[in-house]
């Protein structure tokens, strides 16, 4: 009892950092055991319930060709530095940090440059995390409130083929499920330190004998940064509770708090490496801070094949960012720095009903939901003195989002499983643009038919064919913009996205998954997506620009081999050809190939290790420019005892100089040099070789 109390206290304490700049929530936990896999009658052997063993059997059946489930064990083995960093485990998903820890990543998936989340939907359980109101980007994702140690599963659905995939799922969705398995109870303490001055502490309290969803976790991080202008501090707290019987219902609650403050190194021109060094900066003084408080309460009841789910969620959010990606190009005297500020509130509710029909091996399901996002956005030009000298944006906005879907899941024959649905979404916007002195209201909708067919033609082989439509609602400020061409000689420096509308993407995919033996799994998927309009977030103007239609075609392959319980290999590769249809130019930032190869050694006790090689081929940029690909080798070695684990990780072991994010646009950072408006390559650097020592105490 005393020990549990101590854990609880430490969990709270670890949320405090020595610095004063930002409130840091904290919390956390450890990777829970893999959730129960769907047993199949052909499967030989016991399901793996360990937290670390590398076994192919962790893979469980999926509903569409591009879906996959990343288990708690996989997450635990990779020791991600944050919830956002855990997305690196998603095959074919590339994340880019162009600031420092605390700022949301830029995401690339299936040929989409999802920027900060405009094309990748992320949910925490059933709570959507894409911010429909965010001053920095449409659908902005901040995943630093998710503590990887308590993620029980990361479910990935590439493409928009499943009914519950909502706004921003044009490229796909990722769902973080939280839970702590019995192996990690009653809790753990984890500390991490790197030679570059990064400290991380996690405390998890999860009393034994309780459901997986009952835990309290905290996380605190201080990072001095691997180079100048990259200091970051953040913290997170996650509290989850579930009661199997609460007035006849199953009750679940979740509370998430997070805070972060970070510096922003900005970008470096490729031609500036010789002067500033590969990891140099222009010392533009950028940075940001954010806080979020999120809560969810859910009720569920299942009776005679009928399941009813009710949930309410809400969030408070503050976000502030200052950056300068163009130097003195636009404003020679004051500089081009911008400061953005967001205050937002979110409230939502949903109810879902599912009725199983045993005779037909099928189920009818339906769900209704509503969410209100309200907030204020501000953006100002900031001079070299730090004072704002021009207001670019002052917007108050509300968005009501309503959705309903209904569908049928059935398996009329052993060789066919079908998930067909029709989803409708309605967005009710109201906004007041105080800069333009305009108020506007607009209602927009989208209808999304989807069908996912799987054909388990053999116990070791399943084929998939899927069709679906994803959608991306416009950002709120677009509804107050002047229509293009209606104002003679208006300098079109404001929103130029044309008429606001819900952008839709139609996608198809076909694939197969073969599991000829319990220790071998391989799959391949061919996919294609067409988008009527493409919107690219422009960091220079901080606007989304309307682009020509685009299409993406490609293929994904993955292989997992576990010849022994202590050895496993995995590899995945994604090829994508992403182009604008009008010009046939490639979509900037995308690459033709990316993939990963992993070798894992070890079991629950004793020595363990992992080697992972990630590769990305040439990144195609705007205007015909390109940046070379890269390969990153990450190594991990450690030793596990019953109550302790000590691991050493070497990230970027080859010390490759990697341009993480690469962009092609004009800038002027040298006021003594001539001004040029011709685009050049800019990049943000990935971290050099970094050794992390991670010590974990299990209670």
């Amino acid at each position: 009892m005393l020990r549990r109390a101590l854990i609880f206290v430490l969990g709270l304490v670890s949320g405090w950092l020595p610095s004063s700049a930002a409130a840091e929530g904290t919390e956390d936990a450890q990777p829970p055991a893999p959730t129960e896999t769907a047993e199949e009658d052909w499967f030989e052997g016991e399901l793996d319930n360990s937290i670390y063993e590398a076994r192919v059997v962790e893979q469980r059946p999926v509903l569409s060709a591009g879906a996959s489930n990343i288990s708690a064990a996989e997450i635990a083995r990779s020791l991600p530095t944050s919830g956002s960093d855990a997305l690196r485990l998603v095959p074919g998903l590339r994340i880019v940090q162009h600031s420092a820890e605390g700022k949301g990543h830029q995401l690339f998936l299936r040929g989409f440059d999802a920027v900060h989340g405009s094309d990748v939907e992320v949910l925490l359980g059933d709570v959507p995390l894409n911010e429909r109101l965010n001053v920095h980007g449409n659908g902005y994702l901040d995943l630093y409130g998710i503590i990887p140690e308590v993620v029980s599963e990361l479910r990935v659905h590439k493409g928009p083929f499943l009914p519950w995939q909502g706004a921003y799922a044009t490229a796909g969705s990722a769902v973080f499920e939280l839970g702590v398995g019995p192996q990690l109870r009653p809790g753990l303490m984890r500390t991490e330190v790197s030679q570059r001055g990064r400290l991380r502490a996690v405390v998890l309290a999860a009393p034994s004998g309780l459901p997986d969803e009952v835990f309290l976790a905290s996380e605190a991080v201080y990072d001095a940064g691997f180079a100048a202008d990259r200091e970051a501090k953040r913290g997170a707290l996650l509290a989850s509770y579930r009661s199997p019987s609460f007035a006849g219902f199953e009750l679940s609650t979740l509370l998430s708090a997070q805070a972060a403050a970070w510096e922003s190194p900005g970008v470096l021109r490729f031609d500036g490496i010789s002067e500033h060094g590969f990891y140099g900066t222009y010392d533009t003084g950028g940075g940001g801070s954010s806080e979020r408080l999120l809560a969810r309460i859910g009720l569920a009841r299942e009776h005679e094949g009928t399941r009813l789910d009710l949930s309410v969620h809400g969030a408070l959010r503050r976000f502030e960012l200052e950056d300068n990606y163009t130097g003195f190009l636009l404003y020679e005297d004051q500089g081009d720095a911008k400061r953005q500020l967001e205050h937002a509130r979110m409230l939502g509710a949903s109810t879902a009903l599912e009725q199983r029909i045993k005779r037909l091996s099928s189920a009818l399901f339906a769900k209704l939901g509503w969410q209100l996002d309200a907030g204020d956005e501000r953006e100002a030009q900031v001079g070299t003195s730090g004072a704002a000298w021009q207001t670019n944006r002052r917007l108050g906005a509300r968005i009501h989002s309503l959705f309903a879907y209904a569908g049928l899941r059935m398996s009329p024959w052993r060789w066919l499983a079908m998930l067909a649905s029709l989803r409708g979404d309605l967005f009710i916007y109201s906004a007041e643009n105080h800069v333009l002195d305009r108020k506007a209201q607009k209602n927009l909708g989208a209808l999304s038919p989807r069908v996912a067919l799987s054909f388990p033609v053999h116990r070791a082989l399943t084929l998939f064919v899927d069709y679906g439509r994803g959608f991306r609602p416009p950002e709120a400020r677009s509804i107050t913009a002047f229509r293009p061409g209606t104002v003679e000689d208006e300098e079109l420096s404001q929103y130029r996205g044309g008429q606001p509308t819900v952008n839709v993407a139609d996608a198809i995919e076909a694939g197969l998954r073969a599991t000829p033996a319990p220790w071998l799994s391989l799959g391949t998927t061919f996919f294609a997506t067409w988008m009527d309009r493409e919107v690219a977030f422009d960091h220079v103007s901080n606007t989304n620009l309307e682009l020509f239609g685009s299409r993406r075609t490609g293929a994904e392959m993955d292989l997992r081999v576990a010849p022994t319980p202590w050895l496993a290999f995995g590899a995945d590769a994604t090829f994508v050809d992403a182009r604008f249809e009008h010009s046939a130019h490639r979509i900037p930032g995308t690459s033709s190939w990316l993939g990963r190869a992993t070798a894992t050694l070890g079991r629950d006790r004793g020595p363990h290790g992992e080697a992972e090689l990630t590769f990305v081929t040439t990144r195609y940029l705007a205007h015909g420019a390109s940046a070379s690909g890269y390969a990153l080798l990450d190594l991990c070695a450690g030793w596990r005892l019953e109550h302790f684990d000590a691991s050493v990780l070497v990230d970027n072991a080859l010390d490759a100089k990697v341009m993480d994010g690469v962009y092609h646009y004009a800038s002027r950072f040298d006021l003594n040099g001539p001004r040029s408006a011709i685009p050049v390559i800019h990049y943000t650097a990935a971290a050099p070789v970094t050794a992390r020592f991670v010590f974990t105490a299990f209670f």
Partner: protein
Amino acid sequence: MWKKSLMLTVLLVFVSLALGVCDPEATEPSPVSLPVVADNTHIEPCTNAQGWTITVTALRVALENLELTIEGETHASLREHLRELAVPTAHAHPGHYAGGEVTGELPGKLLIDFMGGHGESLGAASLLPGNYNGMNLYLRTATAADGLTADDPLVGHTAVIAGTAEKSGTVVQFEALLDVNEGTQVVGGPFALAVDAQTSAKLGLALFTIDPSEKDTLFDGLDFGELDSDGDGAVSIAAGQTAHNLLMKTFIRHDHWGVTVQ
């Protein structure tokens, strides 16, 4: 046996990919250099909305940073295109609809004497390969640093336009000194050229007295008879006058600027 082979294969993949790690490289498109000259072939006699036929005899302008733009991947919506077919709007230039990504430029301060310096070299523009469809420029105030003598009428102003206006036998000599806010940008003048590494062309920076798209004129709104209130046949237009503001507003519209290909 085959398991060992598989493991060996995987290890080889690791090693080969690891060997691929090297310093980052980047490939920039090579800019194409094209000469730019002053082009006065579009400064032609025109009849304005008030019925005056204007002939320009002198036109000098101070500007800087000529930018050349491609459409990029931005576009007008299909609905807009369809609407354009049915009801042509007054906005036919790329500046209104095209994204106008700047990928070409002639940087620096320019002082252009259109009438006295036709064909005069303004410098060499650098253009990345692409399909160009627009141009921008920035207007500025001329100073002695431009090499002007202190008594040059252009000093302290953006442009000097002189000429004659004739209507029903009445002839008025006019001179306008235009003052435009420093850094005022003219966005979206026409410039159509597909540029690649083999492109060899001379570009002309042109001012259109007659808007080629809408056929309105640079001098619309000016009634020279009213301006010549003393009837001496000479009119001076300067800042502070309504006529100045009318002419200045038209002068900074992209409708009257463009880059021609010679």
